[in-house]
């Protein structure tokens, strides 16, 4: 099993979710994050104070999938999350040692 973490633009979340559902990914966990990278932030001004906000709001999607689904999942994310502009985000993949479904105690790919 692999854990895929994708950091994508907010307004792409729905599309990515639908895409992943279509290729059979049945669960995912989403977190609000702030990203720093090539994409520029913005400036804010409050009376005399001026701040450059380097962080851009993003969402992180985590999905755990069986090894043979990884390619599909990555391709789907690449397809649905891409705008072609700087700041589209990243996909990071890590190996997973174990997965457990809390409700049933099932482990491994059965837990997904």
């Amino acid at each position: 099993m692999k854990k895929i973490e994708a950091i994508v633009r907010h307004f792409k979340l729905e599309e990515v979710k639908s895409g992943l559902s279509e290729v059979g990914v049945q669960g995912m966990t989403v977190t609000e994050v702030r990203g720093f990278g090539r994409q520029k932030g913005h400036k804010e001004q409050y009376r005399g104070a001026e701040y450059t906000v380097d962080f851009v709001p993003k969402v992180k999607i985590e999905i755990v999938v069986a090894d043979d689904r990884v390619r599909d999942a990555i391709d789907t994310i690449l397809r649905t999350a891409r705008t072609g502009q700087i700041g589209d985000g990243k996909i990071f993949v890590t190996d997973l040692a174990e997965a457990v479904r809390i409700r049933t105690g099932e482990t491994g790919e059965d837990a997904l």
Partner: protein
Amino acid sequence: MIRSTRSIERLLGAVIAATLMAGCALAQDTASTSSPAFKLDSGDIAWMLTSSALVLMMTGPGLALFYSGLVRRKNVLGTMMQSFAMMVLITLQWFLFGYSIAFHEGSGWGGLSWMFLGGVSPAQPDPYGYAATIPHQLWMVYQLMFAIITPALVTGAFAERMKFSAMAIFLLAWSTVVYDPLAHWVWGKGGWFRNGDGQELVGALDFAGGTVVHISSGVSALVCALFLGKRRGYPREAMPPHNLTYSFIGAALLWVGWFGFNAGSAVAASGLAVSAFVATHFATAAAALSWAVMEWLQRGKPSVLGGISGAVAGLVAITPASGFVGPRAAVAIGLVAGAVCFFACTSLKNRFGYDDSLDAFGVHGIGGTVGALLTGVFASKWVNPAGADGLLHGNARQLLNQAVAVVATWALAAAGTLIILAILKATIGLRVSEEDEIEGLDVTQHGEVGYNF
């Protein structure tokens, strides 16, 4: 042709400021000469001062909260700023010439004799009997509060996508070519629809602004929604209100403030003010119930947004009638308005697919029209001898008059809005760029964010 929009916008600000400066410098304030034939009433003044404050509170924070709660988080300040800008800009426009256009004597408009508020006395009533027992300036400032909220209502139609500069210029122009003349037609000395002078073309009843305020803003809102087009992603993307609690607070403040709007329109602390207060309150409750029940029947749950939308619809619909009907008619008007506006904001909007983002048309355009027409049905001289009887009291004619005023208002509002928008689109442009729309008005138009939690 126009090379730099940005510098034009800045120039504009500077020019306005300079004009105001000049006006102030050239014209020293002087008090009006005294005239013996009037008697101020401290109770009436007290109530009208209070009412003026209440009506200002309707725009800020009332409407600002109601509207900004409905948009997405990234546009919360931009939306508040639209209401706030009206508090600022219309005040100065009123000072420069708005009040004169609307309330100086005249048929189609009032002219420019009262520019810079020259001749508007703080000590004596106005010369035309708009308000016999309070100083002219109080009438002027009370009416200003109406002139502020009306364009602010329009902003609901183009929320989350209009450039701040375009919005400001559009609504300043709109106020000048739509609101001020319309206020003159309906309420101004010599106005074509002003009931009771005997000089009017058609005597329409509009106690507190069903046509002048609500139809005008609501219909203009529809034109804006159609002309500007939908928000990026609408209706595919979910755009739920980011903070319904704000909308709730706003709606409650609107309810409270509306007593100043309607009961204040009696321009005295009189039985008529009481009657308008009571009609307003009961119609509002009835409309809130009506909308919520519709929702409960159709969707299975009554919602807070439904309840407060119904309340606002009721407030809108009772506005023209409030000084002409008793509590029973008020409840009837409220029940009808709640249900009709519910359909306007759900089925009708979805059927035609325009993006009237915050339902300015569905609530104010439709609610105002319902109210204006039902005024012609329920109005009674028993309640207000200075008014007229409606259909139910044997005067079908009044309903016709109301319809004429409604049509005229629709026409003026639609035409005026269309022309101004067309000009602006061809010059400085109306919408923010797609990127800015995605990032939100707060950061792109104002360099701020609403919440830093």
